[in-house]
Structures are given as structure tokens and as C-alpha cells.
């Protein structure tokens, strides 16, 4: 008899977590290279009811996955902004190991290394940081990732792809981590575009409608729980009356 309450609760918890995921997407609407997250729900069946085969279904949020659609390119004219056209990723070195990112807002640090906005070195073909000589003035990045300073070839940006990019995990700072055993492969079909940044792929309208949708769902589930409680209350009142 308490089932409606618990079924409702399972849905309410899932909806609340979905709203948190939507909130994170909207908060990162202007974060270059950000990838939106989506939630997956599934029913957990449990025996219940009068007949042996009757089942009741609870909602569980089984997973979040990453929406890997590319974001829009914006021209900035800054030679240190590099966007990726294709399904590739830049490889960067962090103290916790190598990470992958689509965020190509690079700069030079005090040692002349090419680093990301978070200050992590961007790696070249040989998985080494790229150092740009201090006396060079013009930086060019070719469509094949070739970095040149004053027409002198420096290095080639390491651009990799994954057979299953869903195996990547968001780790903050617009970086993605690969679990052990998930090996990156070269991505020759991905081109680098200098002077552009890839915006976040969050679509505002989609997120806002999703949000309205789930806040209505929340109300409906709450109503359902209330009605279940009313039913219970009236049952107690009627059946509990002394004859």
C-alpha cells in the first residue's frame, strides 16, 4: 500500500538529479569546449501486487552521458586560439596524468610552453610539451596541427580520437580523463583551425524546455503521491470506523 509513495520518491529523486545536470549545462553555456551532459533513466522492476507476475516499476537514473555534438565556432582572430574540426581531442599534461580537451584557448607561459587556459602544457606528436622560442613573434597553426613560429616549424599538436568517446570522464577544467585501458588513437581526419574557438555545445532553448518539462513532471509526481496518501487516509477512516 505504501508503493505509490516510494515509486513517487524514486521519480522525484531522479528528477532532482536531472535538474542538477541541466543546471550545470546552463551554467557552462559560455564555457569554450564544454560538452553537455544528459541523464539516462531506467525502470527497476520489483514483484508486487496480488498475482505472482505483477510487478511495480521504480525509476532509477542509471547514467549520465556526454553529448558529443560539436559546438559552434567563433572567430576571435587570436593566433593562440585553436579549434578542432572533427572528433579529435587535444592531449594535455596535468599533475594527475594526461587529459583530453576540446578547449583550444592556449597561451604561452613564462617558460614559453604552450599551455591551456588552466596552465597545463599541450602535448605534441611525441607527447612532449611544445616550447615556443621567446624571440619569435608570429605563431601559425596549420590545418594539420603544425605549429610554426616565424615560419620555423616547431612541433605538431597531438590530436587524438577514441573509438568510444563515452568512456571519457569529465574531470573539470574542461578536461576529460580516460580510464585505464582506453587508449587514444591518432586522428588524421580532424583539422585544426587557428583563430577560432569552439563554443560550448549547450543549446539554451533545449535546456530551458527540458527544465520546464521536468519541473512539471515533478509537480505531477507529487500530485500522484498526494493522491495515494489520500486514498490511504480515507481507507483508514472508513475501515477503521467501529461498526
Amino acid at each position, binding site marked *: 500500500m505504501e508503493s505509490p509513495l516510494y515509486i513517487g520518491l524514486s521519480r522525484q529523486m531522479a528528477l532532482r538529479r536531472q535538474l542538477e545536470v541541466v543546471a550545470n549545462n546552463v*551554467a557552462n*553555456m559560455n564555457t569554450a569546449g564544454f560538452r553537455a551532459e544528459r541523464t539516462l533513466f531506467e525502470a527497476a522492476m520489483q514483484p508486487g501486487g496480488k498475482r505472482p507476475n505483477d510487478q511495480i516499476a521504480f525509476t532509477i537514473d542509471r547514467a549520465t552521458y556526454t553529448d558529443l555534438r560539436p559546438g559552434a565556432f567563433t572567430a576571435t*582572430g587570436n593566433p593562440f586560439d585553436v579549434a578542432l574540426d572533427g572528433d579529435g581531442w587535444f592531449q594535455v599534461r596535468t599533475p594527475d596524468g594526461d587529459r583530453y580537451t576540446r578547449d583550444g584557448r592556449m597561451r604561452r607561459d613564462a*617558460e614559453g610552453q604552450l599551455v591551456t587556459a588552466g596552465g597545463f602544457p599541450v602535448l605534441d606528436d611525441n607527447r612532449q610539451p611544445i616550447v615556443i622560442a621567446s624571440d619569435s613573434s608570429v605563431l601559425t597553426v596549420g590545418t594539420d596541427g603544425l605549429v610554426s613560429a616565424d615560419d620555423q616549424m616547431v612541433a605538431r599538436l597531438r590530436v587524438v580520437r577514441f573509438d568510444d568517446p563515452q568512456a571519457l570522464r569529465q574531470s573539470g577544467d574542461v578536461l576529460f580523463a580516460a580510464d585505464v585501458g582506453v587508449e587514444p588513437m591518432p586522428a588524421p581526419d580532424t583539422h585544426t583551425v587557428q583563430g577560432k574557438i569552439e563554443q560550448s555545445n549547450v543549446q539554451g532553448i533545449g535546456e530551458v524546455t527540458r527544465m520546464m518539462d521536468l519541473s512539471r513532471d*515533478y509537480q505531477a509526481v*507529487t500530485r500522484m503521491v498526494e493522491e495515494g496518501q489520500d486514498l490511504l487516509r480515507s481507507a483508514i477512516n472508513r475501515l477503521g470506523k467501529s461498526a
Partner: protein
Amino acid sequence: MRVLSIASTGMMAQQLNVEVISNNIANINTTSYKRGRAEFQDLMYQSERRQGSQSTDAGTIVPTGIEVGLGVRPAAVNRINTTGNLTSTGNELDVAIEGRGYFNVRLPGGDTAYTRAGSFKLSPEGTIVNADGYPIMPEVTVPQGTREIAIGKSGEVQAYVDGQAKPRTLGQLVMTVFVNESGLEALGDNLYRATPASGEPQDGAAGQAGFGTIRQKYLESSNVNVVQEITELISAQRAYEMNAKVVEAGDQMASTLSNMR
């Protein structure tokens, strides 16, 4: 309610974005101003169910887990160091740098500051000073009776003095470059100061490898592009509104719950 705090990080980020854009627009006519760009990064993720963990005794694993991000944070306000347009002014003490490099200016306290704003003037003693009266380094003094000052592409300053056919060389404008220009600290008044992040200042002359060249009678305008700033302003404003909408939705859900009988 995590929703409210996540959405509030988004609102705060967009507020910073609008502040940076408004400073860019305010400095649209500031000599050699470099536009700032607020850069954002996502905050850490809370893992509710980790991918790769075992889902059954048979050894199957969870292919994708549940991760809830905690919002956004500003990572940097990056100065975009592209050269602004050079505008002809006809004034012989206006100099622009075409390419990389900064002029050296001595602050009243004796420290050195760096600037690209080459709208120089003369002090009562004849030394070349910037718009605030700080002398450029090394000091260059223009003698009395000078008809014309010529500043060459590599920065040598010459004066044509009355009664002399040949120009007299007064000195050389020193230029400084930094490995990481975005790491310079902005002091206001078009001045910058070296920091550990910018790297050691490297002095040289204009026209050397890695240094820009000097253009006399030109000024570098700001590199702010109005169209770009306005479109970014619109996008920041919309993002702010949507974050506010998320706060509203979170609030609505909480109130639905508290009104539950």
C-alpha cells in the same frame, strides 16, 4: 539543493563576463588598449555512480556512470594581445609598435613599467615623457631649438636643430618583449608591470628578431571590436537569464515539495 548553487555559479560567471565586456567597450578609444576575455571552466564533478565499477558478480561493468557537475568557474581574464589598428596622427612624438614589444617607462617610485601607448610628449626640461609625465627609459632629451624630431623604424631618435644641416642622434628607444604577455599585470594608465608569470623582460631594439618595428606619427588604437563585444554581451545576458530560470525551476520544485500534503 545543489541546483541553486550550480545555477548561482552560472549567474556569477556571466556577471563577470558582462563586467569584462563593459570594460572593453569603455576602453574602445583608449590608445593601445588590449581587450580582455573572461574564460570559464567547468567545476569538478561529483560521481554518484562510477563508470567502470562492477555491476554484477559475472564481471560486467557500468559503462557510463552518473556524474553531476557542480557548475562553472572563471579561469582567467585573458588579455588578447593582437595589434590594434594603426592610426595616422601626424604628431611627431606619436609612435606605434607594429608587432611585439613594449616601451619602458620609469614610474615615480623608480620602478619600470611597460606600455604600448606611444603618445609621448615633452617635459619642460625637454625629456620625452608619456601622457602622465613619466619619462621613457633610457631617458632621451631633446635640445633647445629643435625643428623636427625623427624616430626611425628601429627606434633611434634624431633631432634636426636650427642652424645644423645634419640631424643629431639623441638616443635609442629600448623595446622589451615578454614570453607570456598575458601574464603582465595591468596597472591602469596603459601601463603594465612584469610578474613571475610574464617571464623575464628581454630588452632589445625594434626590428630585431622577435621585436616589432616602430612607426612614427602613428598611434595604435585599441583592439576592441564593437560588433564582437555587442554579440558577446547579448550572449552573456541570455545566459544570465537562463541561469536565473534554472534557479526559478529549482525553487518551484522545492515549493512543490513543501506544499505536499
